[in-house]
């Protein structure tokens, strides 16, 4: 436990919570007019509580957090009826005063620890700096305190780690070191901005557990995330933000168990782990005209919106507590009242039972009717991977096995998921299957003919390449930067024998198939949004008319709601075209949702394989159980996970390397 200094300001205002935000507006000056990033945001947060701000990119959640440490930048205007931390009025703060606050009393944890930590300083020096700046401990005690902090955040061998540089640590250790430096001075408030995005599930569970312990030690925690599942196990209260406004807020169990705002529902439905294969994740695309500036910002995307929504901002409606939901909430079980104003939604129609809108689409293909399931196993395999292995040479001369004796079977029209943490060799397998890398041993056969391994000549394979296509995590990098959308897709279409004259029509057709307007043909990839880029990548992968598409982390870089749309698109295209998918992801939820069968990989070897429902319900390997236990799920979510209760089990120890 970090010794906390007596907080006099807080003592003089015993009635007020630690953090009070009331009517916060943040506007950025930009050409040609100013952009409101945060509008009329109010919340309260007390010690020992966790408030989660949830929303997609651009919803204003990060800006709100930055406001609390005075880091919104010089082009911003911040106004608020009240903005107070421990009784001090933050609106009156000058830069020197902010500096006494940052790190000392408000700790900031950012998403990417590799960027946030100084690459030229050891981890120990980084943590010691916070201690030194705020004179938390005497100089002589610096080293001991640094080591005890590293131990506290669960870093093994702290003496050794403290002397290492950020790039020498794994992602999880780095994130923990960053948290250690953020909490070094024992701040009363910890701001965690997407602290687990881009981390493997087991590491993510460890980081979340670490934050939970800070909360139990009495710190207030403001958690920012785009993922309701991550937030579920940790937050006491949840505020869902959209277009700079809080559209729904309340105790976590209420918001997750009884969501009233259509956007909250859409976010919850986008969490793939709670939905079986075949269920739609995103609501059917709604294309309403854009709302007027005074209307509800969500009206353009909302299935419920009507004329009033477009013209008039809804009033905040207090939602009565549903007793069955409240009972399950651990946060109020200890008798403490919630910090916020109770469950409320910014919607004209919060009582309309919206599942009708979503679930009507939900049942589209029953999971049993999905392609691949029920297909006779005797059908000839499309892809046969037999005992492939691959070693890579490190700069120091030693060689490392990236893939060890991996065998796979993939049948036409089937989806095989490969799941594993970073470094498990999934991408190496993908590259070998794509014929971009030759295995050291073993063979790959595609459509009954040799495809990879010894004795396969590239000129023979080249003509067949169009039958295996790929979708990558970073679509932008996979497009020639000089090309426009038309040429990117047109080049791929040409390999299927589309003539130059017919290419424009074919590209338009493909764009429509992936849900894009043909108007985008003249755009460059840089001018597209992340979701649009991935759709263009899918259109390109479809263009040659492939039998197999290798998807390497295709949705990992996307927001939950965009991810849901892309997964729906892939599922729809698969049932329409009967293409087989080899789907690689570190995200068990995504894998569970898309796959017929899965392969679990660890350290280059297959740990477990089987039907997806079978593996998720009765994991045989210890490692699979560990992975599954670490998956965060929205607590009290509407759809219960198929195999376990709502609680989140957490793995605290790193599995030992073999």
């Amino acid at each position, binding site marked *: 436990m970090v010794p906390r200094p007596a907080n006099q300001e807080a003592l003089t205002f015993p009635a007020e919570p630690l953090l009070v935000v009331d009517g916060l507006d943040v506007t*950025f*000056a*930009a*050409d040609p007019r100013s952009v409101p990033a945060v509008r009329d945001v109010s919340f309260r947060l007390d010690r020992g509580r966790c408030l989660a701000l949830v929303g997609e990119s651009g919803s204003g959640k990060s800006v709100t957090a*930055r406001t609390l440490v*005075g*880091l*919104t*930048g*010089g*082009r*911003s*205007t*911040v*106004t*608020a*009826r009240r*903005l107070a931390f421990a009784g001090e*009025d*933050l*609106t*009156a*703060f000058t*830069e020197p005063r*902010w500096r006494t606050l940052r790190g000392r009393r408000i700790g900031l944890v950012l998403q990417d620890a590799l960027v946030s930590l100084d690459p030229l300083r050891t981890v120990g020096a980084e943590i010691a700096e916070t201690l030194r700046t705020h004179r938390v401990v005497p100089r002589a005690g610096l080293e001991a305190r640094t080591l005890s902090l590293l131990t506290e955040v669960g870093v093994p061998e702290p003496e050794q780690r403290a002397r290492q540089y950020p790039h020498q640590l794994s992602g999880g250790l780095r994130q923990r070191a960053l948290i250690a430096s953020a909490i070094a001075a024992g701040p009363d408030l910890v701001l965690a901005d997407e602290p687990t995005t881009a981390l493997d599930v087991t590491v993510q569970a460890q980081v979340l557990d670490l934050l939970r312990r800070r909360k139990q030690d009495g710190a207030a925690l403001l958690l920012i995330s785009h993922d309701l599942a991550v937030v579920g196990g940790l937050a006491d209260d949840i505020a869902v933000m959209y277009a700079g406004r809080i559209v729904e807020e309340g105790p976590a169990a209420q918001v997750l168990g009884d969501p009233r705002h259509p956007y909250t529902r859409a976010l919850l439905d986008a969490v793939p782990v709670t939905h079986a294969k075949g269920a739609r994740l995103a609501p059917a695309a709604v294309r309403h005209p854009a709302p007027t500036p005074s209307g509800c910002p969500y009206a353009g995307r909302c299935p419920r919106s009507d004329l009033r929504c477009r013209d008039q901002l809804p009033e905040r409606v207090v939602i009565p507590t549903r007793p069955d939901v409240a009972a399950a909430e651990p946060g109020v079980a200890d008798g403490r009242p919630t910090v916020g104003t109770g469950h409320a939604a910014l919607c004209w129609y919060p009582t309309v039972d919206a599942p009708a809108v979503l679930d009507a689409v939900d049942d589209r293909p029953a999971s049993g009717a999905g392609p691949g399931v029920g297909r006779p196993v005797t059908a000839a395999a499309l892809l046969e991977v037999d005992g492939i292995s691959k070693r890579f040479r490190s700069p120091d001369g030693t060689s490392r096995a990236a893939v060890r004796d991996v065998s796979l079977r993939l049948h036409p029209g089937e989806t095989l998921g490969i799941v594993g943490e970073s470094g498990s060799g999934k991408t190496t397998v993908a590259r070998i299957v*794509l*014929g*971009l890398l030759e295995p050291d041993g073993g063979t790959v056969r595609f459509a009954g003919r040799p495809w990879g391994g010894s004795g396969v000549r590239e000129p023979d394979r*080249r*003509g*067949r*390449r*169009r039958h*295996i*296509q*790929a979708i*990558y995590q*970073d679509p*932008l*990098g*996979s*497009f*020639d*930067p*000089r090309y426009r959308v038309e040429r990117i897709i047109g*080049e*791929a279409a040409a*390999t299927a024998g589309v003539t130059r004259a017919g290419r424009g029509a074919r590209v338009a057709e493909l764009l429509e198939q992936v849900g894009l307007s043909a108007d985008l043909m003249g755009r460059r990839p*840089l001018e597209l949004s992340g979701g649009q880029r991935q759709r263009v990548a899918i259109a*390109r992968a479809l263009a*040659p008319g492939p039998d197999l598409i290798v998807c390497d982390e295709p949705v990992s870089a996307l927001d939950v709601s965009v991810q849901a749309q892309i997964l729906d698109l892939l599922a729809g295209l698969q049932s329409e075209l009967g293409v087989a998918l080899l789907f690689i992801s570190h995200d068990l939820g995504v894998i569970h949702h898309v796959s017929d069968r899965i392969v679990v990989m660890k350290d280059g070897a297959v740990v477990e394989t089987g039907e997806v429902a079978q593996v998720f319900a009765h994991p045989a390997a210890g490692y699979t159980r560990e992975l599954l236990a670490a998956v965060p799920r929205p607590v009290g979510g509407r759809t219960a996970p198929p195999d376990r209760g709502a609680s989140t089990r957490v793995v605290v120890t790193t599995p030992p390397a073999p």
Partner: protein
Amino acid sequence: MTAMAVADPALLTHPPVTGDRTRRRLSRPGVALAGVVLVLLTLVAVDPGLFTSTAPNETDLARALSGPSGAHWFGTDQLGRDMFARVLYGARPSLLVGLGSTVFALLGGTAVGLAAALGGRVGDEALMRLVDVLLSLPPLLLALLAVTVLGTGTVNVMLAVAIAFAPGYARIVRAEALVVRRSGYVEAAVGLGLRRPVLVARHVLPNTLGPLLVLGTVGFGTSVIYASGLSFLGLGARPPSPEWGAMLSEGRDFLSSAWWIGVFPGLGITVAVIAVNVVGRYAQQRFAGRAR
């Protein structure tokens, strides 16, 4: 309502973007001027007759060695030839040698660099060690060596200067090509089953050359200087043909009595090189700003 403003510029999370382009254009009158000079130089090189009616080799001994005047803006040389006309007519051979040598250097450098980047480990090692050897020699020495082997004359000077600069380009092309070769889009093109020559021509080469072409404009200025230098040494264009380097060499003998014979051709070289460099560097910055 209370207002709060964070004013510390060091804390700007987003650099100001507004009006950046306009400001940059206004703050760069030099670029505009260099552009105008470059256009004029091009016109002069294409048709010097547009700017003067005097022939460059018309001698008039009666007017020999007269200083700049209304009739002869740049004065006359020891044979009474009009220096203004000679400087104008000298633009074409001088700039052409610079342009030609740059083009040859780029072509040779690209060929060697691409071959090294795409030709496997052995080819890469062999070519790059050769490039290292050539780069260890000062370019002027290399050019002189080449002229010694090839013989004197305008075309040979052009080739010699190209040989002097090609190794540098080769190294840049190789580095760029290695990056492009490992990029996602080249991999995606391999996955489409494109044949290797098509792949190189369609994706590798164009994406490699982008930065190189900008570098070439700056290199052009240097080539003009080297070509003029070789002419000055009497290895390139021969008198009486008007060429800035050769004219500079002639003017050297009269520097104490008739400064204009040497100064104006020298000024021609200086102005041309500076104009090209300024425009080239501007293009370089614009290109770097637009690259991903």
